[in-house]
């Protein structure tokens, strides 16, 4: 086993964890010491990336959301094959390009079918 597997390899990680935790704790404690204790309605609202919240966050999602999520999962995971392909693309040349085109063509056929069947319509 190479020495990179030894416990000493974890020292940078340990330092990183300690610094990150320390910084978070420090910010929380320090701001709680110096902040003013005035609350109003806007201050107590949940922060949603700057958009004003309209309803409660614990709502039921439409089942259509799952359909989109499922399609995303299927098409997303195909990138797993594109990363190794991209890394050695220079060695594969035209052959690799054609292979990937065939692969993507098959995906596109599936995508086209899903699209035409209305799987992407948010009715």
């Amino acid at each position, binding site marked *: 086993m190479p020495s990179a597997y030894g416990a000493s390899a974890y020292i940078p990680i340990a330092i990183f964890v300690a610094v990150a935790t320390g910084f978070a704790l420090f910010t929380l404690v320090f701001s709680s010491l110096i902040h003013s204790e005035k609350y109003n309605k806007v201050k107590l609202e949940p922060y949603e990336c700057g958009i004003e919240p309209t309803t409660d966050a614990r709502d039921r999602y439409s089942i259509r959301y799952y359909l989109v999520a499922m399609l995303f999962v299927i098409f997303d995971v195909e990138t797993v094959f594109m990363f190794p392909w991209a890394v050695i693309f220079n060695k594969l040349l035209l*052959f690799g390009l054609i292979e990937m085109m065939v692969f993507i063509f*098959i995906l596109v*056929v*599936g995508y*086209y*079918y899903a699209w*035409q069947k209305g799987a992407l319509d948010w009715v």
Partner: protein
Amino acid sequence: MPPGVSLSDFYYILPELVLTGGALLVLIADVLLPKERRAALAWVTLLALGATAAALVPFANTHVEVAHGLLAVDRFSLFFKILFLLAAAITVLMSIRYLETEGAASPGEYYFLILCATLGMMIMAGGIDLITIMIGLETMAVSFYILAGYIKPNQRSNEAAVKYFLLGAFSLGILLYGMSLMYGLSGTTNLRVMASAFVGQEKDPRLMLAVILVVAGVGFKIAAVPFHMWAPDVYEGAPTPVTAFLSVGSKAASFAMLIRIFVEGMPSMSADWRLLFYVLSILTMTAGNIAAVTQSNVKRMLAYSSIAHAGYLLMGIVAGTARGITATLIYLMIYSFMQLGAFAVITLLRRKDVVGDELKDFSGLAFRNPFAAFAMLLFMLSLGGIPPTAGFMGKFWLFSAAIDAHYYGLAVIGVLNSAISLYYYVRIVVFMYLKKETSGSDPVITPALALVLGVTVMATLVLGVYPQLLFRVADVSARTLGVAGITAAIR
């Protein structure tokens, strides 16, 4: 082109490429064709299967490994590919009227999935590498998960899909864990390289664990007791043509995978896996037959009968000789015809509002439709193993292979089980020929269904009287494997 890959690799997988192209064509045609012309998709599907069969012709005598030993193109895979294509074509012919009765929305999806499942099976039969076997298996299994639940408004179909999916995914986990251990202990994913790597490791407990896990995973796929609990529910709930294809194609493909993994990949461990399959074989045929006796639903009864048949088929594997493998191949082919035929008769009885799979739906069939009743009679006798049908020939070879390998007890249990099975096969015949009361309208035989019944009846009769050709083909196919390795390990 990268080193090690050549154009000839693509030439050797021509049948698979044709089938993939055909499947994509069906999917696109489903979108492009206007709704009223979509019935033509069945014929496009049959055309794709026919083109694939034609593409197999140049490889009748080939014996090569393709793409760094990922796939083997040999007689063994050829035998199974022919079986899969036949089964798929018969299933498509059975489906045409069934889908019309069910009012299924998009037949293109259905036929696409049938073609995908066939593609997966072909890859499984040719796979001599853990990666290809796993991909083939999943291409087949995922297609079947959807097909089992294809009739969406029907809750039974839905439940069948969920049960098949859960147990299928679970068994995949077990199988893959076993495979990961096989990989780790041999350092390769190629089964043939693995075989030599395992020599001398026979007593390694981790390898034993791998064997047990893979046996369990494969056991789920072939529905061997005690891994069979999904089969009756799925067979009963799934659309009848899908059940037919599932019980024939999926089982044959799983046996091909089993033979590849164990005979090609672990011949030196044969003492262990043959013992496991010995136990499974006895459990499977006995439990399957006893459970079948109590069923009143014909599809469910045939499910248990198909479980029992997995037990018979395992006898050839237990024997572990070239003769045993040959017998398994012969019986798989014969079993396909009689099983598909029996399900075709059930499809025939499907009418509006009547599922047609209860025992009482068969009562008086001989007076309503003598040809269908005669066909069913023949399939039942064949499944029970009565001469002069093909089923008798198949069983004869299996039992004699077991006796030949000195498994006398196994052969005796097999014969006793065949006797038990006659009870429930003959019961259907009694309903068809001796019960007078007839229910509902007469079943109509469409040309497609007539073709299916004609082919299966002919095959069941001809293979029972003249089995020499099938025997020779199966023998040559089995001998392309390195069976000698196991036989040497036994003695």
